[in-house]
C-alpha cells in the first residue's frame, strides 16, 4: 500500500489506481510483419524487475489518465512520475 502522485490530480491512495505493468513496450506498428517469436516477445515477455522499474499506471478512479511511474519494486518506493509521451528520467 502506498501513495501515488498522479501527475494530474496529485497524491492519492494506490487503491484509486490500476497498474498497467511494464512501461515503454510499444505496440508494433506492423504486427503482421513480425515472426511468432517477436509477437510473443511483445505480448508476454516482461523484464519483471526487482528494483527500479518503469511502469504504467492509470488513475482509474480519478481522471482516468495513463501515466508512467518509476518505482522500486523491492520496497514500493516511487522515485518519479511522468506523463505519457514524456521522456523517462535517467536512473
Amino acid at each position, binding site marked *: 500500500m502506498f501513495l501515488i502522485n498522479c501527475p494530474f*490530480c496529485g497524491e492519492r*491512495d494506490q487503491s*484509486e489506481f490500476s497498474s498497467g505493468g511494464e512501461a515503454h513496450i510499444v505496440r508494433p506498428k506492423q504486427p503482421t510483419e513480425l515472426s511468432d517469436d517477436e509477437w510473443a516477445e511483445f505480448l508476454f515477455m516482461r523484464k519483471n524487475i526487482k528494483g527500479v522499474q518503469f511502469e504504467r499506471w492509470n488513475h482509474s478512479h480519478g*481522471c482516468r*489518465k495513463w501515466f508512467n511511474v518509476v518505482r522500486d519494486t523491492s520496497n514500493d518506493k516511487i522515485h518519479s512520475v511522468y506523463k505519457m509521451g514524456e521522456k523517462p528520467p535517467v536512473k
Partner: protein
Amino acid sequence: MLNTHYPQITDNKLNDVEISLQEPISKINLRGKSKEFFAKVGKVLSLILPNEANTSSFSENFNAIWLSPDEWMVYFKNDDEKVIFNKLYSEISKVNYGSVTDISDQWICINLKGSKIYDILSAGCSFNFDQFLKTDGLSTQTIVNHIDVILHNKNTYNINLFVRRSFSEHLCLWLNDSAKFI
C-alpha cells in the same frame, strides 16, 4: 405523460448531516483540447472552463468541474434542459471541435450539508480532505465505500456529490448508515 423516477434517496437529517437529492439537474460531459473548443464553450455558457486540476468554475447558471486535462462536467438547473446541450453539441461536436455528451441521468446529484460530512465520507474514503474542505469550489474524483464519486465543494461544509445512478441507492444507504456512527 412520462413520469420521472429518481432513485429512492429520502432526504435525511442525522447527527448534523443533511443528505438531500438535488435532481433534476442537467449534466453535460465536455471533452476537447483545441482553442476553438474553449472559445465555443465560453460563448455558449459564458464560462471559462477551469484548467487547474481539482477545481471548478461557475457563472450565474453553470458550474464546471475539472475532470481531467481534457474533460469537464458542466451542471446546471434548467427548465428546458436540452437547449443548452443541443447548442453545445451543434457548435462543438458536430464541427469536430471536441465531444459533448448528455450525462444528466448518468450521475445523480446529492447534496451533503453539515459539520460532520467529512467524517462520514472519510469512513469509506482514502482522500485527504484537509485542503478540500478549506477551499470553496474545489472538486475531486475519488472512491467512497468502493463507489466512484465526483465531489464538489460548494461552500463551507456543503458539498455536491455525484454518483452513477445505478450505484446511488446503495451509496445513500451507506451514507445514512455512516451518519449514525459519527
